[in-house]
């Protein structure tokens, strides 16, 4: 049992560290003195930095070499991310594109699509967004209603709405899951498309959250024209293609385990700073419970890495770490607000944003309830819930739902 790198891993880490030492001065400054403040400038600078990371082999670590990657494994991806965090420089801007959407195109795309889209994606020249979730299709993603209709000339017309779309406001393309055949059961009538975000009929609107900031978007499609070459993975195969993306998403979330800054030491420091709170037995008990669980997921992360290193695939139980992380951070925010009082809710302070952000994070990447269903069924082997949508054409399902409501 050890937490050390193998000699090969140590060599890779040293190589990444030396590249970062050499190029650190070229990274955009996002915090502290000299930090960029203009949103457009920040995006431009981060895109350029992503290009440099890609040239240095620090973006697309797991991508095949033929598409500009390094053909390395998930462990090297983690080592690379750790070194980027250690160097205190920004990572890649388009982590969704590089982590999930590019790999989906590599797995299911046509050769022309790969040669047209992958290099600009990896280098940050063209940012991508994920157009999957809809107002009425989140956890039940296969219920998407955005409709693509094939035209006589083989092109497509797209109408509908997507939501929770990160980076849509500056994205060049989106990977979109649409319904192409409503007369078959819902998982079967879906198709994946590449959508140019500057196409006529695409409207992007920021979606403000509790904090007041808009980190996500709603995206509307009003009779948007798509050419026949926009389909990824074949007509009617959209669900399988989407599962590939979601598999990469799970890997991304599972391995991005820097805990999003929600660490036991950070929360303890906030409490230690208050002379009264640090000796209050109730405060200490709450902190002790929160911190124990957050410490646990640090080592769950190491267990996941060990599994990867042995060539095993981490199971959905890694998802339980997300439940622990979010619930632990929620309790920590609550404890700190109890100590600091209304000042904790000052938007300029350290905690208000976190307190506002966490209720939504609970549902990010699938609601906690769905996650618990999945783990209960796949890990514990409990029987699934009865489903009322199996084998029923999507068009009939909708009218059934209407009648039931």
């Amino acid at each position, binding site marked *: 049992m050890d937490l050390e790198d193998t000699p090969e891993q140590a060599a890779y880490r040293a190589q990444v560290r030396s590249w970062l030492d050499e190029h650190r001065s070229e990274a955009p400054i996002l915090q502290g003195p000299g930090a960029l403040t203009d949103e457009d400038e920040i995006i431009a600078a981060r895109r350029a930095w992503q290009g440099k990371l890609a040239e240095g082999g620090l973006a697309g670590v797991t991508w095949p070499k033929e598409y500009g990657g390094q053909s390395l494994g998930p462990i090297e991806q983690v080592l690379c991310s750790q070194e980027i965090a250690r160097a205190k420089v920004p990572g890649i801007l388009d982590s969704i594109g590089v982590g999930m959407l590019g790999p989906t195109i590599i797995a299911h795309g046509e050769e022309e699509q790969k040669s047209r889209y992958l290099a600009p994606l990896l280098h940050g020249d063209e940012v991508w967004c994920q157009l999957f979730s809809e107002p009425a299709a989140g956890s039940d993603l296969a219920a998407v209603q955005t409709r693509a209709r094939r035209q006589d000339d083989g092109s497509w017309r797209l109408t509908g709405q997507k939501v929770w779309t990160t980076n849509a406001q500056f994205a060049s393309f989106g990977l979109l899951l649409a319904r192409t055949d409503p007369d078959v059961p819902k998982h079967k009538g879906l198709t994946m498309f590449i959508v140019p975000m500057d196409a006529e009929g695409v409207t992007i609107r920021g979606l403000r959250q509790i904090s007041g900031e808009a980190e996500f978007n709603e995206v509307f499609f009003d009779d948007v024209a798509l050419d026949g070459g926009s389909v990824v993975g074949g007509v009617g195969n959209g669900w399988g293609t989407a599962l590939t993306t979601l598999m990469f998403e799970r890997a991304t979330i599972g391995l991005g385990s820097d805990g999003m800054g929600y660490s036991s030491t950070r929360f303890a420091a906030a409490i230690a*700073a208050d002379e009264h709170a640090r000796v209050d037995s109730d405060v200490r008990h709450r902190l*002790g419970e929160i*911190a124990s669980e957050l410490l646990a997921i640090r080592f769950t992360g190491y267990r996941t890495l060990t599994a990867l290193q042995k060539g095993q695939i981490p199971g959905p139980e890694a998802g*339980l770490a997300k439940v622990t992380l979010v619930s632990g951070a929620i309790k920590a925010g609550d404890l700190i607000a109890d100590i600091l009082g209304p000042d904790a809710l000052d938007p300029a302070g350290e905690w208000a944003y976190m307190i506002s952000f966490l209720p939504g994070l609970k549902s990010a990447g699938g609601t906690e309830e769905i996650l618990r*269903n999945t783990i*209960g069924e796949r*890990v514990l082997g409990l029987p699934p*819930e009865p489903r009322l949508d199996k084998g029923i054409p999507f068009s009939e399902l909708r009218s059934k739902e209407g009648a039931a409501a």
Partner: protein
Amino acid sequence: MNLSLSDEQVFLREAARGALSRFKTLEAAREALDGDKQALPDLWPTACEAGWPGLLIGEAHGGAGLDVFDAMLVLGECGRVIAGVALLGHLPATAILDAAGEQAPMLEELASGEKRAAYLPVCPPGDIEHGWTVDPAAGAARGSAPVASGSPGSVTVSGRLAWVPDAPGADLLVGVAILDGSPVGVAIEAGAAGVTIEAVERYDATRSLGHVTLSDAPASVLGASPETLAAAWHLAQALIAAESLGSVETALDVSVAYAKERFTFGRAIGSYQAVKHSLTEVLRELENGRSLLYYAGWARGGAPGEFPLAASAARSVAGRALDDAARTMISVHGGIGATWEHDAPLYFRRAQLSRRLLGGTGGATDRVAGELIAQS
């Protein structure tokens, strides 16, 4: 990076499971609650055969020279079947003696299991409490550590320690006493003048406990550093955490099996979210606890300064996990789960007592906060 069991550790665990499976420990636990103490199997010969008494004693003294994580694996197996094997008392005592080396009494006999030791649990100072303290027989106020007097060559120890695991029947008591204001390790023969061990039973008949009174009892002073003495307390925390998580594993397995086979309204009850989610919550707590056992096992050798934090965090999570697992086991089984007909009450009793021993789960939780606050 390697946070997984070695082949030897898998073997150690499987061997422990096999050895304990020869006994009907759960039936015995129930009969013992009904007053038949003879029903409880004597598992010490099995432990000796397997080499568990010497797990933490160096090979030079006849032990296996393994580390705390290996000991935790064995305790986990004991917890799975609620087996009382006297290791919770014996192993922390041997850790102190092994560190003391040559001058430690009975080391070879303790390694073979011919003799049995019990650890006198004395909690080391924290960020607020500056003294060494002991669990009281009753109430919230903690007691003072035993006091030694005399010169290091010839000391006697006086003090009172309550709820000492595995004290009844032990040959040697090993713990901490305060000599001229400083903590020293002491070993006291259980049969010596001035030693009284009152066997006490509470709620879980498989758990052997004793109130220990020392009145000018003659003791050997051990050459063990304060860090070693503190580490023994944290080792005990890690061991009871491991044992508790073993019990959680069984409680979860039994509950899941029942949730698959019991039908209501035409469906297996495990298909209902209310049941499924409560079981995944137990799994979540179990997995967190397992990760912290790895943390504690790694820290003891790899980052000794973090061992108090790691062991306390493991204890804290494991204590809550066991309580939740036992309550969930009862509720998933419905009314029968709360009766003598079922094993669930045995796990519930184990949970309620375990959480109050060795400073309590609450004490460990406070220690986690204290360690982190002190580091800030």
